């Protein structure tokens, strides 16, 4: 059995799954139930100045009958009194000393407020701090949250204030509402943060009610931009995580990956691209804490199958395979093949290739079933047919190299090779 325990800057947890700063981690009642269920750690919902929430607060995006592909909220940081939060954090740490307790913070925009808040939080025995530089709504108007994360200079100064006071590990949580997360990440690292976490939510409008004409979520006839998360944002989070893993400055610190992690597979992908731990929220809000069982079990079985003993054996392993486009091998070429035994004649490959790609599939009319075959000489190896085929392994991509040697675009240009060669 593999060892799935995590060590994040000395903060240990029996598994790499932390509950992200959000409603599931805003009170003792929830956190104790999460720990009982088996979660490795929590990031306690952001503490800071007094706020007041509105309703409704959530909206979601459904897709083809599946609910909550994307999730959106306009909730603010913790709206409970600070002293109650601090007391409960201390109790949770005492009751579950083996679990990671990180506390998310968002102090008012001055050094004293940060110092004071950090002192109070450290008194609880918490293991780490996470700076919320990402909340995209409500707090930005006060110059906090994403307003900090979007400006590397401000972010750097705040981190510097924090590092003056903090005696436990500090994680800086980045906002995705920027053209690149790297500048703020660098500023935070250069100002001394011990680690990074990403992504926070993405500003969004999830939709408009077609009866009332009011966008979601509806707050008494009005709406506001919310923060988008859930399965829909995972690809964006993975991209941003990778840029942090690739950058020489930001890659110096460990990262906690966030953004649509719903299954052990998602977690493994985040870790392969550089995350040491992952944070989960939407999936837990949707299905409850019980999902931790499969999150752990699935990761464990996969690690056994792949021969990984600890999570350190694979963290970051996929990062080097993500390169720039002009490094890709132009001589690598694949061609689709349709297994006629498996084909159910739905024609989806045909029409997507016909309308959306390179007209490389041949249709032989039949009643009621048509026969579809690949025109190999026309196939550009784009993969679209394989992606839309509803049958597993019916369409496979077969390698038909154009040349033995590795040839990238830069070399292709240098040699002045003809454009329409292949």
């Amino acid at each position, binding site marked *: 059995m593999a060892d799935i325990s995590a060590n994040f800057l000395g903060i240990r947890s029996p598994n790499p799954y932390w509950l992200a700063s959000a409603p599931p981690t805003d009170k003792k009642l929830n956190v104790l139930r999460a720990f009982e269920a088996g979660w490795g750690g929590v990031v306690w919902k952001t503490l800071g100045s007094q706020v007041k929430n509105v309703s409704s607060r959530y909206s979601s995006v459904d897709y083809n009958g599946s609910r909550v592909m994307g999730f959106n909220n306009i909730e603010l940081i913790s709206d409970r009194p600070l002293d109650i939060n601090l007391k409960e954090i201390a109790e949770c740490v005492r009751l579950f000393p083996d679990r990671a307790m990180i506390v998310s913070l968002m102090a008012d925009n001055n050094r004293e407020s940060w110092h004071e808040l950090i002192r109070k939080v450290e008194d609880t025995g918490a293991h780490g701090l996470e700076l919320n530089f990402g909340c995209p709504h409500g707090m930005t108007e006060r110059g906090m949250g994403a307003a900090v994360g979007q400006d590397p200079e401000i972010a750097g100064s705040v981190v510097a204030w924090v590092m003056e006071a903090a005696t436990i590990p500090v994680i800086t949580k980045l906002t995705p509402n920027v053209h690149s997360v790297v500048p703020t990440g660098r500023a935070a690292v250069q100002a001394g943060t011990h680690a990074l976490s990403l992504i926070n939510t993405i500003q969004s409008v999830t939709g408009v009610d077609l009866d009332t004409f009011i966008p979601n979520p509806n707050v008494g006839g009005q709406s506001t931009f919310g923060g988008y998360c859930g399965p829909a944002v995972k690809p964006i989070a993975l991209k941003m995580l990778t840029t942090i893993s690739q950058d020489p400055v930001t890659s110096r610190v460990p990262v906690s990956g966030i953004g649509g992690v719903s299954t052990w597979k998602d977690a493994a992908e985040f870790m392969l691209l550089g995350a040491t731990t992952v944070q989960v929220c939407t999936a837990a809000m949707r299905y409850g804490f019980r999902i931790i069982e499969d999150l752990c079990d699935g990761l464990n079985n996969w690690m056994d199958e792949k021969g990984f003993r600890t999570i350190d054996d694979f963290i970051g392993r996929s990062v080097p395979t993500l390169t720039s486009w002009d490094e890709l091998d132009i001589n690598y070429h694949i061609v689709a093949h349709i297994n006629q035994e498996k084909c*159910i004649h*739905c*024609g*989806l490959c045909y029409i997507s290739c016909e309308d959306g790609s390179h007209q490389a599939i041949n249709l032989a009319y039949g009643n*009621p079933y048509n026969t579809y075959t690949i025109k190999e000489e026309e196939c550009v190896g784009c993969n679209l047919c394989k992606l839309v085929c*509803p049958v597993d392994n019916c369409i496979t991509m077969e390698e038909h190299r154009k040349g033995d040697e590795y040839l990238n675009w830069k070399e292709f240009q240098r040699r002045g090779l003809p454009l329409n060669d292949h």
Partner: protein
Amino acid sequence: MAVRNNRLTAEEYAQHFSDIHPPFETRDAAMVDANRCLFCYDAPCTKSCPTGINVPKFIKQITTDNIKGAAFTIFSSNIMGGGCAKVCPVEKLCEGACVYNLMEEEAIPIARLQRYATERAIAQKWQLFERKPGIGKKVAIVGAGPAGLSCAHALSREGVDVTIFEKEEKGGGLMTYGIAAYKVTPEFCCDEVDFITSLGGIDIQYGKVLGQDVTLTELQQAYDAVYLAFGVGMARQLYIPGEQLEGVVDAINFIYDIRNSGYPAVPVGDQVAVIGMGMTAIDAATQAKRLGAKEVTLVYRRTQQEMPCTEAEMNIALLDGCKIVWLAAPAEIRGEEGRVTQLVCHAVKLEADAGGRRQPVITDEKIVLPVDMVIKATGQMPFEQLIHDCQLQHNNGKIAVTDNGVTSINGVFSGGDCVNGGKEVVDAVQAGKDGAKVILAYLLEGGNARNSL
């Protein structure tokens, strides 16, 4: 043993004849199945529908809550898409061709989804179609069944005024009078006819019999074209002794009475034999059982391999507790005091003929069933005399037409069961559409059928 009516309580009748394929209870339930649809290109389900309904399109429309669009997609191919969703043998048509069958998965419940869209359209009387401006032509149609109504609707949409002559008191034809009541209710049949005629431009004259109340010549004189869609009617005779005994009925009349007189009024025996294994035989047998017969036995002279009904239909009968005697050819109906007491059959064996096809051969063995009622369901006969009187060319009573419904008389067109001898409702709807197309072309070209017979 007795043949009698009023065997059950009102509650029992209601229960026995309630909808056999209940609709989706909720939107969500429909969505789950609609979202399973792969949205096939050049879809096999569409190709397997005689009316060519664009099935993936209407299912996709259901997934986006565009029910009005879905209903329009269905009705523009098949104006009886509501009824067909209830009575079509979908397991051998659209659903039988669903690609999920090739993945060993449950086919999309196309009929149920079709019903989900059409039932609402009919119940809420959505006006989905608009007539084009009148073209100053009028067409007479004989028969307000699926072919006639489909033809009328298509013509009226094109601005042609249509008068339908119908011998019964209600429209719908086979749908209203010839199908088991647990598949379509009489109320639904009425609503469906109203839905079709609500387009306008379609006048149905009920109780008008061709050859009695009105002649073909009169119609030819008074209208620009005539479409004959009077179906088939007479039950095929067995030509065996005892056929005239009291207690011997034909399935067409039996089902007609159930639809027309109400369940309690229809007499049924204790021990009923139904001869035949087609859809009508199944409808007769299951309904005899549901009317309170103690024992119902289907008698068929071949085996399950050759039966004309689908397996799904046969299973309805078996689940209703009907028995099936295979390889039995009725030889004689015996009676006492003029009333049926026994059905005597020859046991049959199948032997390959010269061409290798298995043919029934009568053996010496006899099968005797004690019965007090015999329902004959061995096919229907065309109205041969009527067709002969109209001086139409025909093949054994089936009106002879070209591929698109042109008869031997200029300006007279025909389609549906009276041409093909009896097929599914959906085939008749398509025939009506085809007929309308050729009639419109004929009217616009000034009275010459392009390719006469």
